């Protein structure tokens, strides 16, 4: 058993290397910014850049009608790496006068003391232990959201083509009397919530490593992306505070607040196993984009600054293809940062605009931008880029869940101590921005990006109406933990440096107090977020039933539909993933689902066929529904819903295990 596992793991890491690490790392080596990046920075940045290159590459392959198979994605990865290697070899790196300064600066910044090095490793170990411990009970694929996403990944792997995000919809024939009316298929509807960048990378890794989609691999990819986001946060803190004497300390404190403390709740380990794919990848792209943007704006060598700016646009376009909400958040953060910078720098606005113009208006950057826009228009337009979807996300909030969260809820969601320290840190930085207190060594760009990031997301969460944001407020608030960790990290490092600089006898006590309080509160939050052991026995039986059904359903006739129950069956969403393994043509809506009972009451115009066909299969309404919707098989919980089918002559019982039973309509 151990050898196949090791072989599978080798393939998996090889696939990760070929799709996410190698292309990004080689791209950095080809760029002028290479000399300004430490090895650790190159490795961390290589993942978001590699992700972006691979995603665009697969889009081009799809557009060229090249089928995505294990061979084609392997050859593409080799081809991409070879091209980048050739470019790197042929290109004569133009040395700029600041080359040695950059290297020296990076060397100094990463010359950590032995104590700092051990502290970093200790925090990293603690983080991996806490997140890993939580994931041990949640790594088994049962999450509904992850199941929805993995359907598309399986579809790409089965067909080798770029998916069309559409589903067949079922509507009541008489919505005013939906509870008593039959329903029919009412055409095909596009699904703007799914974006291709969320799925291509998983398909590539799955094909290369020959991994089963119904396994740990999707969550492990998300876990790696999440870890890279955290390391990028540490690097961002290190660069932002590089002019201060507490840069390493701020980076370590930031690492503590975003790594092991409050490590599960919110957009962290819970989102990894929960399959919130767009948020996890989006956060990585946001942090990486802000990192390269900051380096671009503050770099003294114009050619390297432009190189960083091109990375920024690459990550921005990747974000457009990956997650609309993250793109929306980044847009607002940039607007807030720019407004803050312009207000603070109003007297020297011309100079600022000239600097930005020098960065932007040069042939390589403009060509790169033009390529990105052409890709958006001609190669593949994300499904959410239409007037209807954009207008539904902007304007006055329409629902109670979108009008903003109370202050206390935002604080609670972010980890109250992290929120408190982060808010205090933002206040100190705000004071420096308006000139109340000087913070030597922190550039204006750093202040504006940090404050724009915190304040922007805070207002989007608390008062979305003021900003014309019409999106679920809890989803927006989940993004605030990253800038808060930075400002909280800054506050702790700054306070300690302040006390130490005055040789205060209580300096050590202040440090110990902060560490103990932060650890106690953050770890308490972790302990409250832990979950009990998973019901894998039930889920395994659901997968077994789906596999049986998927392999025995007639393939010639695509009009055969299945129905299953979502109330009692564990991991039922994954049934469609398994169906997609067997049938390239299967629809996202197949099997149809009896949704949560409360949904039928809260939405009275919703079709009731899916409810009636399981709850009362012998009724005349159910019989009409079965005929209208061509439903052949029904999968229900063995002890909860078998009784009503066993008494009917219309059904044969074709499969049974301890938790799931399947009936076939005659």
């Amino acid at each position, binding site marked *: 058993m151990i050898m196949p*596992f090791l072989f*599978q*793991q080798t393939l*998996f*890491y090889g696939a990760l290397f070929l799709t996410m690490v190698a292309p990004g790392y080689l791209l950095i080596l080809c760029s002028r910014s290479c000399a300004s990046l*430490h*090895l*650790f920075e190159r*490795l961390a940045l290589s993942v978001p850049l590699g992700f972006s290159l691979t995603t665009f590459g697969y889009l081009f392959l799809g557009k060229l009608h090249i089928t995505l198979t294990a061979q084609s994605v392997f050859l593409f990865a080799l081809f991409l790496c070879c091209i980048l290697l050739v470019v790197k070899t042929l290109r004569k790196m133009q040395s700029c006068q600041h080359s040695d300064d950059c290297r020296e600066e990076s060397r100094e910044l*990463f010359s950590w003391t*032995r104590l700092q*090095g051990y502290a*970093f*490793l200790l925090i*990293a*170990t603690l983080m*991996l232990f806490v*997140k*890993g411990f939580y*994931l*041990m009970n949640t*790594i*088994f*694929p049962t999450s509904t959201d992850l199941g929805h996403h993995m359907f598309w990944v399986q579809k790409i792997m089965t067909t080798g083509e770029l998916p069309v995000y559409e589903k067949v919809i079922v509507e009541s024939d008489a919505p005013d009397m939906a509870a008593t009316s039959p329903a029919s298929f009412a055409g095909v509807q596009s699904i703007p919530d799914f974006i291709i960048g969320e799925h291509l990378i998983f398909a590539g890794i799955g094909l290369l490593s020959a991994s089963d989609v*119904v*396994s*740990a*691999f999707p*969550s*492990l990819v998300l*876990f*790696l992306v999440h*870890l890279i986001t955290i390391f990028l946060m540490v690097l961002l803190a290190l660069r932002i505070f590089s002019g201060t004497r507490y840069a390493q300390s701020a980076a370590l404190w930031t690492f503590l607040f975003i790594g092991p403390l409050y490590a599960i709740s919110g957009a962290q380990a819970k989102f990894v196993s929960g399959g919130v794919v767009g948020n996890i990848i989006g956060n990585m792209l946001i942090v990486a984009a802000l990192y390269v943007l900051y380096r671009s704006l503050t770099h003294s060598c114009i050619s390297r600054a432009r190189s960083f700016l091109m990375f920024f646009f690459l990550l921005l376009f990747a974000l457009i293809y990956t997650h609309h909400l993250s793109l929306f958040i980044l847009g607002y953060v940039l607007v807030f940062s720019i407004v803050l910078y312009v207000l603070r720098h109003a007297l020297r606005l011309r100079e600022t605009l000239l600097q930005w113009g020098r960065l932007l208006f040069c042939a390589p950057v403009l060509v790169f931008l033009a390529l990105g826009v052409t890709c958006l228009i001609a190669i593949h337009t994300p499904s959410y880029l239409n007037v209807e979807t954009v207008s539904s996300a902007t304007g006055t909030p329409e629902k109670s869940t979108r009008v903003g969260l109370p202050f206390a809820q935002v604080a609670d969601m972010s980890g109250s101590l992290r929120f408190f320290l982060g808010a205090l840190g933002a206040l100190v930085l705000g004071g420096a921005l308006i000139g109340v207190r000087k913070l030597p060594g922190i550039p204006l760009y750093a202040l504006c990006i940090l404050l724009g990031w915190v304040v922007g997301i805070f207002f989007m969460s608390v008062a979305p109406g003021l900003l014309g944001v019409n999106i679920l407020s809890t989803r927006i608030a989940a993004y605030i933990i990253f800038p808060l960790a930075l400002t909280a990290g800054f506050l702790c490092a700054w306070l300690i440096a302040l006390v130490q600089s005055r040789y205060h006898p209580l300096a050590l006590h202040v440090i110990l107090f902060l560490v103990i309080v932060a650890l106690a509160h953050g770890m308490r939050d972790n302990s409250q977020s832990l979950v009990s052991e*998973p019901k*894998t*026995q039930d889920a*395994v*039986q659901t*997968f*077994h*039933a789906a596999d*049986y059904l998927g392999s*025995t359903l*007639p393939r010639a006739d695509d009009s055969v539909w299945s129905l299953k129950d979502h109330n009692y069956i564990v991991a039922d969403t994954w049934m469609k993933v398994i169906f997609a393994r067997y049938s390239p043509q299967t629809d996202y809506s197949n099997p149809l689902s009896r949704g949560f009972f409360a949904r039928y009451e809260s939405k009275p115009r919703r079709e009731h066929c899916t409810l009636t066909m399981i709850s009362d299969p012998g009724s005349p309404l159910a019989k009409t529904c079965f005929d209208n919707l061509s439903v052949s098989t029904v999968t229900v919980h063995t002890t909860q819903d078998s009784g009503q089918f066993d008494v009917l002559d219309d059904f*044969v*019982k*074709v*499969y*049974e*295990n*301890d*938790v799931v039973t*399947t009936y*076939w*309509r*005659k």
Partner: protein
Amino acid sequence: MKHNTFILLLAVLIMGTMSTLAWVERSQSSPVNDKDWWALSYVSPSPSATVFDFVIENFSSSERFEYRVDSATYTASDVILVPAGERSVVALPDDLVSPVTITVQSSTDEKTLYK
């Protein structure tokens, strides 16, 4: 500590955690590991199929299964041994006429198929 050693150590920590999680998931998804269940199904489930052969897949500690076949023209019963982690197909005569009920009993519970 040298930077390369530092990064290598970090990479080993990350890969160690990810591989541990993969191993945990692998053992959780195994139908046999710490599981106790079995499944009964038709070889040809379609109601129009006139083949009534059925399959017992065993992932429980019990190996002994007693089955009984009932139809208007045919009745049979027997005991079959299916080791844990294995499946066994029971072939029935081709000339059976619906309705046919198959009842299989293990030491703990009973499952039924009919068509």
